[in-house]
């Protein structure tokens, strides 16, 4: 019997991503309830699935049929909603990244889940991508000393990919005024949001390789919206680059790891679409390039499959890892924002 899912949130991430993914995994999950925060979108999404809908979170949490709560609301709501799901006695929570926005909140969430035995899975889909799994295996098996690590993103508007997996729209949230990046406080806040909202896709994977945050070397917000952050972690030099473009080529989302004897490049597909896993290519020091095939499943499917395994007791919940991943991202975002505020990077 599939596990019954209640979804908190009815935005593009739900309509274009999680509902289609759960549709692919109908033998494992069934959506029984969708709740919005007042937008009215939940009804349309729920009706097509034959599910219930509601406004706010109380009804969904009181719905005895819901086993799994999927927290897909704005990030500022995540921690509170996880705690509410735990208090409601739900079996498991799937939470979009990040699951908390401060160290204190992340500690409270993990403590509550651990104490109640609530399963928690955070949707850092790249971490679950089979290609990253193989790349990490390669790094471990060859015991390559990692020298530098970089994650480079060049992203066109999400709308381009939403249209390939959903109908209706527009899927972009209403455009707010362009932030004044010349104001250090605004720039620092934008950078913090970008790191905890976008860079977080890859920070758990980076933490696997470079776990101890030593220092932020530089941090810049790049207009129109983007960032360049360089830091040292466990002696490894890490660079994060993002530019969000009003138009341009398809998304580039690349993680590169330079070791003493090779260079591993993981190219992730665009968000939202289902093009399979990332592709990996390895370049050895003698100039030999090897490119590995895609897996049919992407990280989105893989993360929900893992949640099913956790529900079946086939794998343990790694509470300590979740906490450490969360705090790594928060610490990095805070340190980078402080660097911008201090003007040291200017």
């Amino acid at each position, binding site marked *: 019997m599939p596990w019954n899912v209640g979804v908190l949130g009815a935005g593009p991430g739900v309509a274009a991503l999680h509902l289609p993914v759960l549709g692919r995994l109908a033998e494992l999950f069934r959506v029984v309830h969708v709740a919005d925060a007042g937008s009215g979108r939940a009804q349309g999404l729920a009706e097509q699935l034959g599910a219930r809908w509601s406004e706010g979170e109380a009804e969904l949490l009181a719905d005895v049929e819901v086993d799994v709560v999927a927290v897909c609301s704005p990030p500022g709501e995540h921690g509170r909603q996880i705690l509410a799901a735990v208090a409601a006695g739900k079996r498991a929570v799937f939470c979009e990244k990040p699951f908390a926005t401060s160290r204190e909140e992340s500690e409270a969430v993990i403590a509550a889940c651990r104490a109640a035995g609530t399963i928690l899975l955070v949707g850092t889909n790249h971490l679950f991508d089979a290609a990253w799994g193989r790349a990490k295996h390669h790094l471990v098996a060859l015991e390559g000393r990692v020298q530098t690590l970089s994650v480079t993103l060049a992203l066109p508007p999400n709308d381009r990919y939403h249209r390939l997996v959903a109908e209706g729209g527009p899927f972009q949230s209403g455009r707010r005024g362009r932030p004044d990046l010349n104001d250090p406080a605004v720039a620092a806040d934008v950078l913090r949001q970008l790191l905890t909202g976008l860079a977080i896709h890859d920070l758990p994977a980076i933490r696997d390789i470079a776990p101890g945050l030593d220092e932020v070397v530089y941090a810049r917000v790049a207009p129109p919206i983007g960032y360049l952050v360089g830091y040292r972690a466990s002696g490894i030099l890490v660079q994060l680059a993002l530019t969000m473009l009003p138009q341009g080529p398809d998304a580039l989302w690349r993680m590169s790891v*330079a070791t003493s004897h090779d260079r591993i490049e993981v190219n992730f597909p665009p968000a939202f679409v289902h093009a399979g896993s990332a592709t990996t290519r390895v*370049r050895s020091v003698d100039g030999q390039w090897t490119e590995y095939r895609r897996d049919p499943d992407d990280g989105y499917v893989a993360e929900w499959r893992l949640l099913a395994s956790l529900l079946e007791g086939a794998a343990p919940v790694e509470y300590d890892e979740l906490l450490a991943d969360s705090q790594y991202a928060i610490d990095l975002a805070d340190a980078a924002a402080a660097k911008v505020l201090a003007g040291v990077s200017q």
Partner: protein
Amino acid sequence: MNPADRGIGVCTALPAYVAAVAELPLSAALSNDLSGAVAIVPGSGDWWQGMLAARAGGAAAVVIADPEMLPREALESHPWPADVPVIVERPRLRPDVVADAVRARRGSPARIVTVECAAPAAGLDAVLRDGLGWARFLVQGSLTFRSGAAAAQGRIALLDSAGPAGGSILTTVAGAAAGGLHPGGLLQLLALGEVRTEVIVDQPAGLTRLETSTEDGALRAPERFESSARLALRRALVACSSGQPVTDLDDLLEDTALTWAIHGT
């Protein structure tokens, strides 16, 4: 054949340039007489001394073949010649491939440039230097070092340059020392923006790849089959005959100074 019809003399013992002369039979001829000739100076060791000696010997132009990294002391202490055209052959930074890359962007400015290099430690700085040269061309201006850090076997840096409409274009550089025997290493560059340029120069693999991507798709530039030495020699011959100024040496010195600035972090 009248010796005057055999082209400009070229003083070299480097096999790549002897071959290049053979591939330019109407324009060039091997010569032992420096005066009025194109002097080819090997880029190993203290190549700058060879360059100065060639100028003193009356060379009409000098080609520096694949120069190693210039020591910081030499960079700072030498008066560099401005009275003789100096062509710098940088196989990782071929002017024809650079021109292809710049042309394909059709004036669309880069927003962020990333340069990543990997090479055996002894050759890493020269690869970084040429990566910085690529970035300079793609941002179409000089770069300024802002911040950086070094670890045991790698370094990263942030640079910027003047962008359109008073803004700036940010460039990051990462260099990692790797094993292997070939000193040439790997250079990978991305110029991100509405038009994306990706450059891979992998000398151990014998690979130079240039791709330009837009919303319409990706265009891979045709491979350049002319040898790097022949291209450099042709440019030297044109410099001799045209009298047009050549900025190769200034560019090399600028990229070298920037590499040393990053190195000092």
